[in-house]
């Protein structure tokens, strides 16, 4: 399954005083027409798919 297009991207830097959350989000359109939101955890470099 491949990404057809990136619809939007945004980032979050929050809760730095507790357990920092730093993520880059991507709303993407897959080649089958499905929309999913992926994000990269900036601190670990791991990628996740956001639950719908």
């Amino acid at each position: 399954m491949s990404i057809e297009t990136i619809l939007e991207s945004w980032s979050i830097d929050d809760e730095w005083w507790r357990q920092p959350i730093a993520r880059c989000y991507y709303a993407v359109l897959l080649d089958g027409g499905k929309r999913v939101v992926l994000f990269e955890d900036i601190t670990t470099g791991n990628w996740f798919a956001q639950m719908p």
Partner: protein
Amino acid sequence: MYVELHCHSAFSFLDGASPPDELLAEAHRLGYPALALTDRNGVYGSLAFAHAAKALSIQAITGAEVTLSDGARVVLLAESPCGYANLCRLLTEAHLGAERLDPRLQLASIAERREGLIILSGSRRDGLLPRKLEQDGLNAARYLAAHCKSLFGPDRFFVEIQRNRVRGDMGISRALIDVAADLQLGILAAGSVHYHTRNLHRLHDVMVAIRNRTTLDGSHRLRNPNSEFYLRPLDEVVSLYADCPDAVATTSVIAERCKAFDLTRDLGYAFPDFRGADRAPAPRALAELCQARLTERYPPGSIYHTQAVRRLEEELKLIAHHQLSGFFLVYHDLFDLAREVAADIRKGSRRALGNLLPGRGRGSSVSSIVCYLLGLSHIDPIANKLFLGRFLNETLASVPDIDLDFPREIREELIRRVYTHYGAEHVGLVCSFPTYRLRSAVREIGKALDLPLGEIELVAKLADGRADELPDEMDNLPGFAGRKDAPLWKELCQLAHEIRGLPRHVSQHPGGMIISSRPLIELVPLERAAIADRVVCQWDKDSCDDARFIKIDFLALGMLSLVEECVELIARRTGTPPDLSRIDFEDPAIYDRICAGDTIGLFQIESRAQIQMIRRSRPRNLEDLAVEVAIVRPGPIVGGAVNPYVRRREEQRRAHAAGQPYEPPVDHPLLRDCLAETLGVILYQDQVLQVCQALAGFTTGQAEALRRAMSRRRSHDLMAGFWEEFRAGALARGVPEATAEKIFGQVIAFSEFGFPKSHAAAFGLLAYQSAWLRHYHPVEYYVALFNNQPMGFYSTDALGRDAMRNGIEMRLPDVNASDVWCTVEGTGSRESGSVRIGLGFIRHWSEETATATVEEREKHGPFKSVGDFIRRAPPKLKRTAIESLMWVGGCDGFGLTRRELLWQVGLWLPPKASRSGDGRGRRQLELALNHPHERLAFGGLAPHERLLAEYATLGFSASGHPLTLVRSALPSGLTLNRDLENLKAGVKCRVAGLVVARQRPETAKGTVFLLVEDETGMTNVIVRPDIYDRYRAAVRGEPFVLVSGKLAKDDGTVNVLAEKVEGLQFGTPASSHDGARDTPHAFTFLRAMRRVAPDSKDWG
């Protein structure tokens, strides 16, 4: 090329984390050709921004983000001088037309004043168009954009697109682009910058939490979701807007349009004309006025006549050269206005005949003979050999300051009259920007981080270094060691460092006022001050100085209010007010007391450090007093002038006693003339300039530049920048480099606070007059001193005991004898006189209730009983206030004990729980009470209970020192203050007492000074840094301390060098019955005292 047109600095007050100069430095690094400063509802930092930008060859664009009546915001940019004037008018309207701190503006107002302005549609979060789009949809946004287009015109209104990687940005920006395309409006890219580098987003988050008085967790929806609101590299911006390059291009077009206005050049300020400008040109009018007074002040043939004539010629020439004649004449007009105000205020009083001045000059203007002749100064500059160059010189770069001190009452009225005289649109007070310091940073950031309040308060109270030293400070705090690396505390340390020095809010300069012939509201916006009916302009003294505004300083001086009241009280008793301009200024009795260090409560020479110095330098005339006023200041202290001066003064005294001349040593022969009168050291600001001229050949222009640097913020760096010029000049005159370096060190020490000689002379005179009044009219003096608190170095508590040590009886408030404030009692021939404390001093009483009570007594006779008092007392007087009066003995005259009085109050008045809203909730009171329990008998209060009651209800004690009551329980081996003088230097000793003042001056390199008071006087305790670190909690927090140390005696001073500082403690009572009722157990008493003891005065 991209230009950032929406940028907040720290002058958005908790909505911007970078100061303007750091934004500019980053813009310069990134290659920005221009940058706009658009702070929230103000142009507070704009002039400093414009000057700093010029130095970096960046075009500064002046603007602001304004809040509309519905809370939405738009950005206004000034593209022409007219646009800037409209911007200032609009901001003024927003501030003065709405509640203080919540400025709002109608869109229609912007439309009316749109000329010369460019209007941007606002930011993603709360901008006019994005908000509409999010709240009401695309059609509503299109309708609003069309409305704005018709209001402002398509060439003035632009749709702002922001892309800060916030979810939904793309959708919104595409919708806005569509709206703009539909309506043929321009679009522009903007970054909504709130900090210059990404890492400051944390500080900005904290600021948002502070601004909304909540925690970081509580401000989730209010904070920006990410760290993208920084000043981006230019290529990054271009790629962000790759799909709409027009948005970037428009920013350059707008910047180009804004080039027509340069804030550093196009302000157009003019000072108003003087009275009579239509009849004579200013130079002639001024010369005539001065000549007429010259013959009065310096009659032909008098000792200073020739010098005065020469000096006047010189000054008039300089004044004409700088075209300042009108400026001096306007000051003369203003002083005439002050005379009228003073006459009105004193009308009908006895002091009206006392030859009191309406106000007095201070600062460098006192050195001017023109000011002296115009009445703006009361010190003879010729007789006092005052140097003019600090005030007026050939190359003056800015208009000189003329500062005037007034009694508080006169100043208040004078400010009102100046508004009326020149018109509200033409007058404003200078503002100031209090900045974050360690304590405020710890408290506010700590709350935002949700740290325990008690711990935050402890750190704020006990830590006393600078904010960037907080980690080290915490390491030294009991219970906080190691916390600097703990979660949240670590963030507190970092953020406290980052916020240090940033402006917190707008405040009012102590007295600076701007008057403009052109409406001031077209030059700088005005806004409401915290004090009702006052308005401040949005620039501080540095910006006003940069704008070449003429700042008129009307300062309120508490001591002048005291002198007014004291003279009035003396006149009431003796029938004649003393003429303080004609008292004996060489009175040995006065100087004897001053030299003995008996100066508590006097003007300027009362502080702990002053008393120390005065015992060493032993002033015997007004000139010496001027030195005394000037020497205990950071400038001379850091410059190392103090000890050499004292040593040489002693050598001079010995030489003169032996009938020999004394030649003070100087670091270089070129300094002999300019430092002769201060025995070879630099004590006055004027001498800094004289030294530079004599040693390094500074031109008047260089000296003027140095003078300006000396009076600015960050003056140390600015003054240090003169080293190369100084070095080169000195070397050219044959001065060895090492000598030049040493002397330059003394010169830049005056980047710290210092006085010009003229100012010291003016204050020295007032110091002597205060000493004279206290010596010859002590009761009147202390009454006036109490009534004019707060002022000076000491608490009312300490001042009261000093009065008692000087033989004055302090009488407690009495409902049938007290006035509203303190009054003089018993000054018959046999009595030394007493101070009767006023009802207004009692807790829960106000001036209003005290006045009403006194009026009722004067109208219908004395109060006879509790019932009678409660019946006749003003309805607003609450039960708590009546009880406070009883506790402090105000109704002892009714013949009952205080417990019986309090019991009766309980019978007459309902308990607090059933108290009604108005006053104290009366029951039926008109008929005499015949309550079965009315006559119950109770014993009186024991001495310790009375003392505690005084502290609880007055905040001070009128009946003695708390230690008197527990003296027998104190540890053995203590030395009383009065006995220290009899001990030999170096012996071990222990002293105990109440901490009256704590001082940790920056110049003392970590040493702390405590003034510890026992029944016999105050002991100066010196706590070295290592001892301070060991006993910090006691030194900073304990009201009563026990100090063990070594006695140090030097030049008439007696100090205790602390080796151990503990909180005073007693053992717990063995049982609840331990100790008789009249003699408290020391432990119980001290514990109660800790709750009510007044805070010591803490000085930096």
